[in-house]
């Protein structure tokens, strides 16, 4: 132990890295986007996550071309067959077609809600941190209030009161409820960023408050915001599936959430032929979430130099 301590004092201090390191960065000479993909390719899990997400998005976009027939037939709860590889639903609709087409709402609501969450969090968080004072205090109170309410319960209550009749409103409600945590971390980041001298320089040049906040400060958090956007997507999907499962979301149309809820309430669980009908959407949701989480983890490693150096 003694030796370690004595020796530790002889180690060169951090931040005294020799000057070559700067030159090395320059010598690499790779564009930011190509560099990003190169980094992503170096992490296997990140690449897998990225591919999963891209494939699921592509599947959803091209769903009508891949397997567009969603017409009910009289062939209820049909087992596996060449015509219906995953059997059919209780209404005689091809399960595979439902799975392929059912990602649209999930992805739209997930990304839409996440976009709204991030938007609210960034706007309120950065302005609160920049202005401080009463606005900051008020927003922190509001955020605390939102955070103390159990989200799924609030969603349930609101769902039963308003009966959101379209996925759009579902996205709005989910997004509007999940911003407080992100808002707090954005606020914390802006509090340190706004003390940086380049912000003072922008103030001295009288560039205007909104410009300083949203053009000078916020883009410096771009990677942090991107990672949190993806995390928000996963959270929004969980919240949405939960609402469907509880039957509190609009049950019109075809999507994975409705399939799970439908299977659950119509006793598909007790019918071995209907098993694919309930397992397939669950598998898709798990796959999507897995892809997103893998992607976030490597994005964190790529974009956060402190993690990268370990």
């Amino acid at each position: 132990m003694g030796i370690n301590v004595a020796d530790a004092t002889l180690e060169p201090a951090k931040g005294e890295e020799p000057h070559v390191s700067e030159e090395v960065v320059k010598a690499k000479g790779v564009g930011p986007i190509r560099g990003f993909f190169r980094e992503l390719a170096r992490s296997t899990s990140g690449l897998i996550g990225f591919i999963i997400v891209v494939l699921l998005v592509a599947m959803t976009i091209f769903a009508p071309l891949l397997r567009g027939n969603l017409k009910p037939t009289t062939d209820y709860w049909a087992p596996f067959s060449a015509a219906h590889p995953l059997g059919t639903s209780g209404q005689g609709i091809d399960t595979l077609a439902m799975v392929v087409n059912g990602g649209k709402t999930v992805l739209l609501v997930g990304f839409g809600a996440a976009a709204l969450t991030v938007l609210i969090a960034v706007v309120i968080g950065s302005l609160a941190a920049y202005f401080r004072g009463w606005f900051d205090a008020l927003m922190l109170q509001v955020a605390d209030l939102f955070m103390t309410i159990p989200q799924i319960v609030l969603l349930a209550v609101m769902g039963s009161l308003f009966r959101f009749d379209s996925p759009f409103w579902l996205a709005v409600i989910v997004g509007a409820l999940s911003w407080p945590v992100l808002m707090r971390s954005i606020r914390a980041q802006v509090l340190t960023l706004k003390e940086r001298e380049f912000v003072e320089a922008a103030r001295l040049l009288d560039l205007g408050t909104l410009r300083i906040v949203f053009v000078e400060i916020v883009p410096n958090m771009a990677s942090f915001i991107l990672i949190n956007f993806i995390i928000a997507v996963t959270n929004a999907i969980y919240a949405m599936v939960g609402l469907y499962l509880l039957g509190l979301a609009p049950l019109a149309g075809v999507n994975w959430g409705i399939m799970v809820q439908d299977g659950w309430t119509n006793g598909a669980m007790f019918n071995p032929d209907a098993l694919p009908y309930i397992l397939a959407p669950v598998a898709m949701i798990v796959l999507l979430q897995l892809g997103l989480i893998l992607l976030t983890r490597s994005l964190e490693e790529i974009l956060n130099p402190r993690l990268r150096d370990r």
Partner: protein
Amino acid sequence: MLESGDTPLLRMTHVDQTFKTKKGDVPAVQDVNFEVGPGQVLCLVGESGCGKTTSARMAGGLLKPTGGEVAYLGKNIWDMDSKEFIDYRRSVQYVHQDPYASLNPIRSVAATLTAPLLKHGLAKNRHEAWEQAAELCRRVDLTPPEAYLSKFPHQLSGGQRQRVAVARALTLNPKLIIADESTSMLDVSIRVGMLKMLGKLRDELNVGFLFITHDLAIAKYFGWSGKTAVMYLGKVVEIGPTPEVINNPQHPYTRALLNAVPEPDPDLTRTKLPNGGLRSSEIPNLRELPTGCTFHPRCPLFEAGCDKVVPILAEIGPNREVACHVTGRDTRSQTDSPTRELAG
């Protein structure tokens, strides 16, 4: 104090700054007076904690004084209406110490320089703003401008970044630049180029400079034709034309500083007194300032009474003021009559 009857660009009158902290009040700046005119240089020198940066921040309108007045063109900046304040804000620019922190890492040089031009209507369109940005690059010797405009801060060296910071300060055609240790983080060979460039701005654009530095050699070089004020524990202890302050220092603290600075000449530098000739190297805490003259615990000229009475900054010759009981008395008695004749 100005040679002619002009209104100075910037005038600080009896300016105080006291920071309130949990452990008690910290008098960071007390009763500071100085002025800077167009094309003039005032160097503020002293050790860390002497109040030079706090004074500079008050001059730049970044900090409101707790007492006294900061005036731009004769008008207190904190009593200005918004139009006057905007004019002041644009005319007085600040160049920070650390070129690694003062440029936004995600903005290219062109974006940094064109933003204020477009925002304040100094350029009608992007093309014109680009042209002006290129001209500013040439001003600060970043040539050819095309090689720098599309670069990002991490692609530039420290000296190049600091030049971009100066170019940015020049975008709004300022009349006064406050340079807060702007050259202290640069390598010697790069520092000289930077100082020459700033000198050129003073001569060609008639920009006034409030130049903050801890390095007396830099103050001497940059401020030779201007004035230098030496600060100690929040107060100006000596002020006068730079050549006189540096070559004929009157306050014992100024003398100690000059004695402590190493010279790039082996034989000369080894003639200097150990410890700058001081009795103690401890810098007192601002919260518990010594009584009387705050320099007395370290002062080699300490006399009975120095620890009782606070010396005032008094004139000892043309344009020269010193706050010292001992040297102030000696020089005053020596120069009393000639000064009167000159003044009369």
